[in-house]
């Protein structure tokens, strides 16, 4: 329906700027609106409180003959079958940048960087001077916004590189990339970070752009739900790109999925990131939000390899993460009651979320610590260290109803990554 609506709107002369499952963002002249919907638009000056507490006039666009301000009734237009209504955007007033401090909410959750770092056993590694310094980590995701959370802590991040079809490098309209990147900094605060901002439909091209940067680690918090082969041509190309990255010596971490049969999370060359939940007493159990399965595409491949920290169903609202105020996640997860919603304020630049999307950058951060401790280690050796040193998880069931038990299992793989044990093992491999 969305595709049909966008097509019809384009044919009516509108520029389609963006869309999601429910809404389409369009732009066009007043004449285009009047021709398409049969309504006359007019401008109205209203006085409002603007930035720095100054009062002043602002121009609003209004629609004649509608009881709801700014609403175009489409019911008598030729687009009525695909467009329920059109809301004219109001001028936004930005009062202040978001706060660097996370909001306080009254339920068990983790904050970045402190809680995540502590739970991954990364704090003690940082105290020994291993912080990811000099290690290049690239994420391929929805973009990266310079939130004060990052700026005030002095985290190092280059401007986002635009992947194929992506636009607006300083924006993260969704918030996913910005938020999840905080997990990588929590594990390894001194990494050299860069985001490749993906467009809508060419994630392989975005991944290739990440490989082209030649980083030490690539972290991807997305994937396709593929239970059986054969892979499509596009996914075969993505699989080949993952293999090429490994051949180039790049550590590639992919999320295993949130109840999905994640691809490339099941590719043999990646570190497949699953989920473990830590409660307020520090007890570990398999996250029932996270995937774990035996691949039917790659014979003998078991997913995940290791876990990061992930919340529980229904929404995995577990890690309070910074994002661009008013982006998709901020605008859809605010308010309400935990666990369905995150109880933050709308447009405050913070939201509680996780999923194996959080696990991948946490693990990528730990890989950066290992790489700093022993630069000679390659991707397969680093994965082997993570698996050998992970904390076994013996309780709980994952999203695929796989039960955690002693030793490796499909619920959590080898268990929760242990940065301290992993770095010690890496140092032993490199010698004094």
């Amino acid at each position, binding site marked *: 329906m*969305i*595709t049909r609506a*966008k*097509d019809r709107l384009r044919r009516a002369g509108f*520029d*389609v*700027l*963006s869309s*999601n499952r429910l809404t389409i963002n369009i732009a066009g002249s007043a004449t285009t609106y009047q021709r398409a919907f049969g309504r006359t638009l007019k401008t109205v000056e209203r006085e409002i409180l603007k930035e720095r507490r100054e009062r002043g006039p602002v121009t609003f666009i209004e629609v004649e003959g509608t009881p709801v301000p700014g609403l175009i009734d489409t019911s008598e237009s030729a687009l009525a079958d695909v467009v329920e209504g059109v809301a004219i955007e109001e001028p936004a007033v930005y009062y202040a940048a978001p706060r660097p401090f996370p909001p306080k909410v009254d339920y068990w959750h983790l904050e970045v960087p402190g809680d995540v770092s502590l739970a991954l056993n990364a704090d003690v590694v940082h105290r020994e001077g291993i912080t990811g310094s000099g290690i290049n980590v690239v994420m391929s*995701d*929805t*973009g990266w916004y310079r939130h004060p959370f990052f700026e005030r802590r002095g985290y190092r991040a280059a401007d986002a590189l635009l992947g*194929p*079809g*992506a*636009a607006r490098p300083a924006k993260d*309209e*969704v918030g*996913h*990339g910005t938020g999840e990147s905080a997990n990588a900094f929590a594990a390894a605060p001194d990494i050299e970070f860069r985001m490749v*901002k*993906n*467009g*809508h*439909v*060419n*994630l*392989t*091209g975005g991944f*290739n*752009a990440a*490989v*082209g940067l030649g980083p030490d680690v690539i972290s*991807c*918090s*997305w*994937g*396709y*739900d593929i239970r059986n082969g054969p892979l*499509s*041509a*596009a996914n*075969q*190309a993505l699989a*080949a*790109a993952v*293999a*090429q*990255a490994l051949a180039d010596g790049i550590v590639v971490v992919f*999320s295993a*999925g*949130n109840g*999905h049969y*994640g691809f490339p999370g099941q590719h043999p060359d990646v570190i497949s990131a699953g989920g473990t939940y830590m409660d307020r007493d520090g007890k570990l159990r398999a996250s029932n939000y996270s995937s774990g399965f035996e691949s039917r595409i790659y014979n003998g491949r078991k997913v995940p390899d290791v876990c990061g920290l992930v919340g529980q169903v229904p929404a995995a609202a577990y890690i309070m993460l910074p994002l661009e105020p008013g982006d*998709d*996640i901020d605008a*859809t997860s605010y308010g309400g009651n935990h666990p369905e919603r995150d109880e933050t304020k709308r447009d405050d630049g913070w939201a509680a979320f996780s*999923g*194996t*999307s959080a696990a991948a950058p946490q693990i990528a951060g730990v890989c950066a610590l290992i790489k700093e401790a022993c630069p000679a280690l390659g991707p397969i050796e680093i994965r082997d260290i993570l698996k050998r040193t992970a904390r076994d998880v013996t309780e709980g069931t994952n999203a695929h109803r796989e039960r955690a038990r002693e030793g490796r299992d499909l619920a959590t793989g080898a268990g929760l990554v242990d940065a301290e044990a992993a770095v010690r093992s890496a140092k032993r491999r490199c010698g004094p």
Partner: protein
Amino acid sequence: MADEGTISAQVILNDAGAASEVCGFFATAGFETGPFVGTSFAITGPRERFEETFGAAAGSSLAETRPVELPTSAVPDDVAEAIEAIAVGGPPDFGPP
């Protein structure tokens, strides 16, 4: 997240040795080209450029949200024979909402 007037596809080759030649063809045709990694590289451009290169019928398939493959019949034979497929992928099933 993206400029919706822009389309991006992945050109998948059966002969990696032809990468620079095929890449050059699409660059000359006005597409932005990405790095060749593994077996493929990205081509990106406005919808009209895709329709000019792959035919008007490609335009309707580009409106699909599911993955589609574009015809190589409109591409010169010497370029087309190195191409396995030209794929327009779909959005991810998990990760960003």
